[in-house]
């Protein structure tokens, strides 16, 4: 479905954030991308969703193809209509809009009223809590509910491929478990998922395939379950080792939200 080939992306013509990444998201699968801060995960998603130029980033080489059609250089609206929708990092729901208006904004790219009505029903089925709060302002929801709203908003465009940027960010362990189940359910309903995460336990739990990004390059890739057993992933991402704290504190925390790691 989505295939990325030898992609190189730089910001401001100088800082190279993605250095020759190749990656495939097969039809109907969940693919996880792991990596610490600055590994190039968000850049990768921005490139796919077409918002790179808003950050003064540029694709220097390589391609991003959806079923053969090149996505590089297309505007974000066109990419949404082709069926690729991104849930941004940190949820970014519209806090002053109601839950219903947030969902409406998510369906803005399409003119198909019946498809939107069906999508809205699907969202309310997946997240009954949103249905109880349709006229409440998004900013008044809890963190977990906001993440559900962000995912629901993306589903309003009936995507073939859903891009998730760290959905576990700042959420309690129990909620992260729910988010994992929701991702699995969305995938069961036929949507492919590209899941970018720092929470390796949740990501490797739902993913079929996984890639590990390290400073802009793919350092490991393969079947998610096999990858979870490798020493490197165990040591770096699942925390089964003695020097773990040292590894984590060396990376300066970029976000103000707290993060839960297994």
């Amino acid at each position, binding site marked *: 479905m989505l295939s990325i080939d030898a992609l190189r992306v730089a910001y401001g013509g100088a800082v190279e954030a993605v250095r020759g990444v190749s990656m495939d998201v097969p039809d109907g699968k969940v693919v996880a991308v792991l990596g610490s801060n600055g590994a190039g995960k968000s850049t990768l998603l921005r490139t796919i969703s077409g918002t790179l130029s808003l950050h003064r980033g540029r694709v220097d080489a390589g391609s991003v193809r959806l079923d053969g059609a090149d996505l590089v250089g297309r505007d974000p609206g066109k990419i*949404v209509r082709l069926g690729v929708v991104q849930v941004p990092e940190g949820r970014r729901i519209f806090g002053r*809009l109601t839950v219903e208006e947030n969902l409406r904004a998510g369906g*803005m790219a399409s003119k198909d009223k019946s498809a939107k009505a069906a999508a809205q029903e699907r969202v309310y089925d997946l997240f009954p809590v949103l249905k109880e709060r349709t006229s409440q302002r998004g900013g008044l929801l809890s963190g977990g509910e906001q993440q559900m709203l962000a995912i629901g908003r993306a589903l309003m465009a009936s995507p073939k491929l859903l891009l998730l940027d760290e959905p576990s960010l700042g959420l309690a362990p129990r909620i992260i478990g729910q988010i994992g189940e929701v991702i699995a359910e969305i995938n069961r309903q036929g949507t492919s998922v590209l899941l970018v995460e720092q929470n390796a336990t949740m990501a490797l739990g739902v993913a079929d395939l996984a890639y590990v990004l390290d400073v802009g390059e793919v350092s490991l890739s393969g079947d998610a379950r096999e990858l979870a057993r490798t020493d490197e992933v165990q040591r770096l991402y699942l925390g089964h080792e003695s020097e773990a704290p040292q590894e984590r504190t060396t990376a300066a925390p970029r976000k103000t939200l707290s993060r839960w790691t297994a």
Partner: protein
Amino acid sequence: MTQFLSLLVNGISLGTIYALIALGFVVIFKASEVVNFAHGSLLLLGAYVIAVTSDALGFLGAVLVGVAVTAVAAVLVERLVINRLRGAPVISLAIVTIGVDIIILTELVRRLGSDILNVPHPWAGESIRFAGVGISLNRGVAMVVAAVLIGLFFLAFKYSNWGVAMRASAEDGETAALMGIKQGQVSALAWVVAGVLAAVAALFLVGSPTPGVSPTVYAVALAAFPAAILGGLDSTGGALVGGLLIGIAETLATGYQDEMLFLGRGFGTVVPYIVMLVILLVRPSGLFGTRELTRV
């Protein structure tokens, strides 16, 4: 008491006209993040076009053409200038609109010269009286039309796709882009709406008790700036309240100037700015403004 009521009614009617102008100003600020200083000259353009085409097209035709020309002019400013400078600092954009304003205003003043063009309102010169409270028919019609337009605007802003897209885009442009909401389109539409509202305001501003279209109309339109700013630059509700507040304050100050002669004559025109200053001293982001957004 009668004088007070009469002034109050006149103030409210002037206030609704200011509210029309201020709403456009706020919509543009929300959609394009531009403080549009060219708003006054766009309004004068609308008044000018209505006045010069009314002989040939009749009153209604002239109004339609005037509204259309103003809307197109507003969109041209957005497409040719503002849209190309997206991402530039707010201050630079504001200064660019001052430049646009000077260009349009200079040309209009050249064309107007010292003439006062007359707009043949069907209700010209008439006035209505009710229990001793008098108001020119022009201002009466203005109040009704403005109330309808403002009502329609708020309905569209709340319920239409454009309204939802506009509010989403104003809150978080990048995320809105991720849902396929095009900031360019939202912004262009905002300028159209602002242009239409300004032209309608112009239609009533040049009627009784104002003599007609002359460069002084521009100065009158300027009073809508404090209305938008004191309401909170990013608040549509604030624009409405601000417009009414300024309209009433200005009319009262003008009406009671004989009782306040120590302030001198013509004090009414200064009142909008004094009201704005006082409110900003107490609430720096305006009555309903969001704190961060109004730090222009």
